[in-house]
């Protein structure tokens, strides 16, 4: 019987089915691609991305996007970028490998900071970008921006402090427990040393040999005596090593306690600050005023820079090792999709050359046509071989009064990554902002602003500088607000008289442990005026705070310090005593050994003589 393998009559229906499938793909490709683009880019950037229309132009290997909006993840009612038309020219060979290589991107009708008709969705979910968004917000919270306190001095009353709220007392109790534990540990260590038997036998041997004449021992007797001395000396040496080990351990324990004592002094400083905060004393230290007035607005700038730098770290990793990313969303589990970069091949994503044209209209000094370029933005910088560079500046010569210069370099070619961005705006209308703690809004008017942000080695080294300067500042008081107190009126009088504003905020350190400082020309002016008005009263209040804290913690801290000192002294004395005892007996044994060997070097093996 002939076995029939193919069902030839089914070819027709199969072709029909495949044609139908092709037609469906043709009809739905653009809406599906538009939706997928929106979803994928929203997921990647961690902010809502909207695409009005998407046209696929297969003959030109191009994609046209219209009405693109990228929401600002930090201000949901505002667009970071809005563009009328974007054309992407793709590399067909790379597309065959399921890679997106944009040979040329042109973007027209770009606008920044436009208002959104509908607020964007806040970044949420478990994706990488929302995680970074949350992490960056958390990171920004760690900066200890002082609150501007302008409480009238007449409200300072007697300070009521609860001792349980004081860190010093809690630390002292904890240190006491640690001291006890170190003391017990040392005691146990001394017991385990067990050098008594070694000392006793060594002394006994030394005494016995001292009473013996080596000449009467004979050759064999002398040899045995020497061996006994050497054996005992070895035991003494072992005991010394045990003591040295204990000494090291005791030193660590004692050092640990010493740190605890230092910690108590630091805790006391914290308690002073805490007690002072209960009094709500007016702030009149210049650095604190600077931080209080401009800390939040400065950190917001650095926070945004840190967010984009962190995304760049994730999406543009150095090296060519396989990279797992979450698989596509589907009913079935997503799993992980692993990318295998290959040397001299296309990266998974590459924007070779992007040209962005935008214009600023009106009659302002910054009006004119601008151009921005993006080069080498890629998912695998090691394959592209050059850092990504972004620049933006005015295309034609314009007013010398105003300009916008933006530049960024993302260098992830090796593990020693370096991201840097700088933006310099001159003669442009700077956004107004509220002054925290004061019913006042600052409108810097036309001025200059610069931001520099640099991150090396995945956040191990961080540098940032944000500065604004304007000589046409206006101060908008919140007239509908509450009645101002005397100090607030003083501050308002000071700032209202100033037309000039210079703020400089600096960031340094690392992502894990950043340092932040901010200063302005307002700080000193306000500080001097407040100090002149209420300085003496505040100094008295601070003295009272110190006395109160000292009185509460002194009887808890002093006994602990004494105990720590006692443990330190005792440990030292006992170890030295044990070392001395061993040293003495070792000396005696060496004398005897020298006597037995007739002045030969101790430890030297005598020749064995057959009798």
């Amino acid at each position, binding site marked *: 019987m002939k076995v*029939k*393998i*193919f*069902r030839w*009559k*089914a*070819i027709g*229906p*199969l072709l029909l*089915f*495949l044609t139908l499938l092709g037609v469906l793909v043709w009809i739905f490709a653009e809406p599906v691609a538009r939706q997928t683009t929106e979803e994928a880019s929203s997921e990647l950037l961690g902010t809502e991305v909207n695409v009005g229309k998407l046209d696929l132009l297969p003959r030109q290997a191009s994609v046209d996007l219209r009405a693109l909006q990228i929401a600002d993840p930090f201000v949901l009612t505002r667009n970071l970028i809005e563009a009328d038309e974007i054309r992407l020219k793709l590399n067909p*060979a790379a597309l*065959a*490998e*399921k*890679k997106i290589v944009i040979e040329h991107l042109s973007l027209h009708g770009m606008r920044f900071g436009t208002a959104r008709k509908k607020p964007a969705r806040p970044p949420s979910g478990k994706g990488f970008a929302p995680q970074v968004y949350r992490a960056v917000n958390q990171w920004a919270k760690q900066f200890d921006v002082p609150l501007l306190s302008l409480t009238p001095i007449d409200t300072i009353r007697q300070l009521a402090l609860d001792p349980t709220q004081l860190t010093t007392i809690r630390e002292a109790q904890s240190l006491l427990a640690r001291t006890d534990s170190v003391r017990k540990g040392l005691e146990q260590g001394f017991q385990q040393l067990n050098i008594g038997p070694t000392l006793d036998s060594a002394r006994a041997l030394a005494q016995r040999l001292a009473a013996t004449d080596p000449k009467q021992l004979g050759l064999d007797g002398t040899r045995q005596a020497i061996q006994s001395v050497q054996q005992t000396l070895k035991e003494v040496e072992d005991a010394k090593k045990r003591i040295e080990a204990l000494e090291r351990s005791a030193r660590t324990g004692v050092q640990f306690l010493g740190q605890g004592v230092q910690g108590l002094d630091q805790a006391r400083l914290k308690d002073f600050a805490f007690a002072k905060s209960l009094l709500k004393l007016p702030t009149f230290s210049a650095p604190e005023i600077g931080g209080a007035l401009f800390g939040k607005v400065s950190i917001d700038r650095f926070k945004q820079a840190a967010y984009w730098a962190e995304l760049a770290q994730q999406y543009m990793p150095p090296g060519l090792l*396989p990279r797992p990313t979450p*698989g*596509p969303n*589907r009913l*079935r*589990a*997503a*799993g*992980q*999709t*692993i*990318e*295998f*970069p*290959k040397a001299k*091949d*296309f990266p998974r994503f590459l924007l070779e050359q992007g040209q962005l044209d935008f214009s600023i209209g009106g009659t302002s000094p910054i009006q004119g046509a601008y151009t921005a370029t993006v080069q080498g933005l890629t998912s695998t910088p090691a394959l592209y071989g050059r850092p990504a560079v972004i620049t933006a500046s005015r295309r034609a010569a314009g007013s010398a009064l105003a300009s916008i210069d933006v530049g960024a370099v993302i260098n992830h070619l090796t593990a020693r990554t370096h991201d840097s961005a700088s933006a310099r705006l001159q003669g442009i209308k700077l956004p107004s902002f509220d002054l925290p703690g004061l019913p006042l809004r600052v409108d810097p008017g036309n001025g200059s602003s610069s931001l520099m942000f640099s991150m090396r080695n995945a956040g191990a080294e961080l540098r940032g500088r944000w500065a604004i300067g304007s000589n046409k500042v206006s101060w908008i008081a919140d007239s509908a607000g509450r009645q101002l107190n005397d100090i607030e009126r003083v501050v308002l009088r000071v700032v209202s008289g100033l037309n000039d504003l210079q703020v400089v905020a600096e960031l340094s350190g690392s992502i894990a442990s950043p340092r932040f400082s901010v200063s302005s020309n307002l700080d000193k002016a306000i500080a001097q005026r407040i100090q002149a008005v209420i300085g003496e009263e505040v100094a008295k209040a601070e003295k009272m705070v110190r006395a109160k804290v000292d009185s509460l913690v002194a009887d808890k801290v002093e006994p602990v310090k004494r105990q720590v000192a006692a443990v330190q002294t005792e440990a030292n004395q006992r170890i030295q005593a044990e070392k001395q005892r061993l040293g003495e007996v070792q000396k005696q044994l060496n004398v005897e050994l020298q006597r037995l060997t007739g002045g030969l070097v101790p430890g030297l093996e005598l020749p064995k003589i057959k009798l």
Partner: protein
Amino acid sequence: MLTLLKLIQSMIKTLHSAGTPGQVAAGMALGSVLGLTPLLSPHNLVIFSLLVLLNVSFGGGMLGWMLFVPVGFLLDPVFDRIGSSLLTAPSLRPLWTDWTNTPLLPYTDFNNTIVLGSFVSWLVLAIPIFFAARYGVAKYRATIGERVRQSKVYKAITASQVYNVYKMFRP
């Protein structure tokens, strides 16, 4: 409910089709990949075409698909592990590097742990599925098959228009 009815309908039709137990079993073994692996994967278009073109039971294929859909969902964590171990094996890295950098091959999505893990599992399970299905169909036909054929339900199903279309693809 509709899915369940369709499943019963498909099962009854397939088990009583003119195809040999081997043809039904081959259809089920091929169809099981549609259920075990994520459906919208390019290799499933090839499998579907094979089901149509090869002289195996198309109904068996559909039956295999439906039976293995829940199995696929249940075994996703296992597939993920299998796929992950294959994709991260240092000895296989050159293969995957070439695979994902060769035109058209990346569209297979075999660099996804679930797709690769489930496909490889199907390759391993296809032969046991074939033999188990062949044994099951033969046993069914030899025992209760004739009684079911005489039942009113079976006659109602076979009399429907859908059955006429289905007969086109019957081996």
